[in-house]
């Protein structure tokens, strides 16, 4: 970044003694000495980088960062309360103390009675109860006409602090003992998602651990916008910021007005 050409030095008018040696001053436009690169030093010594929604060490996926002045946008994006989408992989038959497959084993159970239909039924009920929580935590008076209209359009969302809420959940793959779920949620942590997998196992009269948590979408940022480890260089970062600028701006205007 420091190697890139910076701003041109400012110019000011100074009254210098005449070059010929005669007395008097001559007005000359010279660059300001304070702007000289040797005086000023490198333009960037440190960069302020802020992080968006947290991501566990055991999880992977889209992680939004803000650089410099972009950190202000991070707070605005947080206040938009947009949903995040995760793919969560689970394994039936085991229960561990930290709900993931690397924890200490608590119990082993059978799982041959589980069918895809039972899993989908449980998943539908989870979605239903969380939908109810969505309406309750959105702090709208249920008796008004506007609450009814927002509920019809499906736009009711908590716009303040709330416990983790799952807005949509469905089963992507099911091959005993493994299964994969797609979860859309708000205000959650990855450990909460692992706990949900554990509770699904309990509800099906067996046990389950979470093998994989991967965030595939965070608000407006999807996997396509994300940069891989090999792409962490200035050019790609610049291109990524440029591509996402418009999306972020429209989303902020739409939600926060």
């Amino acid at each position: 970044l420091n190697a890139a050409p910076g701003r041109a030095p400012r110019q000011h008018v100074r009254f210098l003694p005449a070059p010929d040696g005669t007395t008097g001053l001559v007005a000359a436009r010279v660059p300001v000495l304070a702007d000289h690169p040797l005086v000023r030093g490198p333009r960037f010594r440190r960069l302020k980088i802020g992080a968006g929604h947290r991501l566990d060490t055991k999880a992977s996926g889209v992680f939004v960062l803000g650089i410099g002045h972009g950190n202000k946008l991070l707070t605005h994006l947080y206040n938009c309360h947009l949903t995040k989408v995760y793919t969560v992989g689970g394994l039936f038959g085991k229960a561990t103390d930290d709900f993931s497959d690397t924890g200490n084993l608590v119990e082993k159970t059978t799982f041959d009675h589980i069918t895809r239909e039972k899993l989908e039924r449980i998943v539908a009920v989870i979605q239903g109860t969380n939908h109810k929580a969505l309406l309750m935590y959105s702090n709208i008076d249920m008796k008004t006409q506007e609450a009814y209209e927002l509920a019809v359009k499906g736009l009711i969302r908590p716009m303040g602090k709330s416990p983790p809420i799952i807005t949509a959940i469905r089963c992507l793959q099911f091959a005993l003992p493994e299964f994969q779920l797609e979860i859309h949620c708000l205000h959650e942590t990855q450990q909460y998602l692992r706990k949900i997998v554990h509770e699904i196992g309990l509800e099906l009269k067996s046990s389950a651990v979470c093998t994989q948590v991967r965030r595939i979408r965070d608000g407006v940022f999807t996997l396509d916008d994300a940069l891989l480890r090999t792409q962490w260089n200035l050019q790609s970062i610049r291109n990524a910021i440029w591509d996402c600028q418009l999306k972020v701006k429209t989303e902020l205007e739409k939600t926060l007005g």
Partner: protein
Amino acid sequence: AVLRAVPGAVLGAVPRPPALHRGLAKPAGPRSVRQLREAEEAAPVFQYAGKAAKRKDRVFVWGFCYSGALGVPSFVKPDVGWKKPRRIQATPYRLETEEKISSAACGYGFTLLSSHTTDITKVWGMGLNKDSQLGFQRSIRDRTKGYEYVLEPSPIPLPLEKPQQTRVLQVSCGRAHSLILTDSEGVFTMGNNSYGQCGRKVIEDETYSESHLIHQLKEFDSRVVQVVCGQDHSLFRTKKGAVYACGWGADGQTGLGHYNITSVPTKLHGDIAGVNIIQVSSYGDCCLAVSDEGDVFGWGNSEYLQLASVTETTQVNVPRHLPFKIGKIKEAACGGTGNIVLTEEGNVFVWGYGILGKGPNLIETAVPEMIPPSLFGWSDFSPDIRVAHVRCGLSHFAALTNRGELFVWGKNLRGCLGTGRMEDQYFPWRVTVPGEVVDVACGVDHMVSMVKSFA
């Protein structure tokens, strides 16, 4: 000096061999990966549910407790010191039953549960029994008297000819009378008969409380397949598609062309003559019937614009066809002031007066209004959610989806909605029940649901 004791040694004993060296035990460090894997493979496997595990059938109740209609005695008379009497059960509460309940009906302060079994006890009742709507419940303290309030599901003895072969198909409850439909022995009626709603002649000054009389009705043109109780009248639907009625008729709810009492079930004519009716419904003073071609017919009270689409009068005593252009109708349900129908596509339409389910602004309408399916959980993410059944209580509505979710809305009279809150609900709201709801019965201030467990 010779006998000076050597510390630790007994005089004359053999000198001890040198003490065995005990190495200090090494503390157990973190187990290696191989040890962990071996421990995991050696761990015992528990089986909570086998491969052929069946889903269990359960009954959940909620609403007003003091009438005893919920069937949990500890709500009214606590059996343990720390329990307090509960006036309202605001969320679903599990009711333990001995048999699988196939049909339930809620009346005005009492409930009937029936099972499909061939055992001797097929029907249980709880709640108000001041008019013997639950039969004669012999009191334990005084063998000649009966109970006025029944707090627990108590068996109702039916005078069956073949008690170990007949099965009870369906039960229905009205304000103070109840009907029980069997498969081979007709319909049994009990309770108040001051308007002939039990299908027998009205006896002046009859005392209905502690009465042993259960009347049996068999004279219909074919086998009765559905019985429905209105507030003070009864409707019977036969296999051939005909509808019979008896009881109070001052609002025309018997549909027989007059406003008098009928004490013998009589066949209805009017617009339903010759039409094959597949479902009848009533709870207050208005009645609806659905034909096999998807048409809906109505008669009875129309003070709340229930039948205002065909007539300006407030009472209709002959069944009239309601010309709604909303599609083929599959199911209909009548409440006290509002009606609800379900079409073949799965759309729900409401009309009438009261809290209809489209927000606080819609109080009354004579023309059916559709409730948007997104309120029942339909969205782009789950597009195959459909409403499967609709039910109606006196001032609230219930809808069951094909995924087994129960939605309620309407006036929350004494906690009958089961949402956990005491406020009225102006649009469909989910009731959290731990299971898949198979059927629900709505009463005035309580509800009963039949639920299948998840796994």
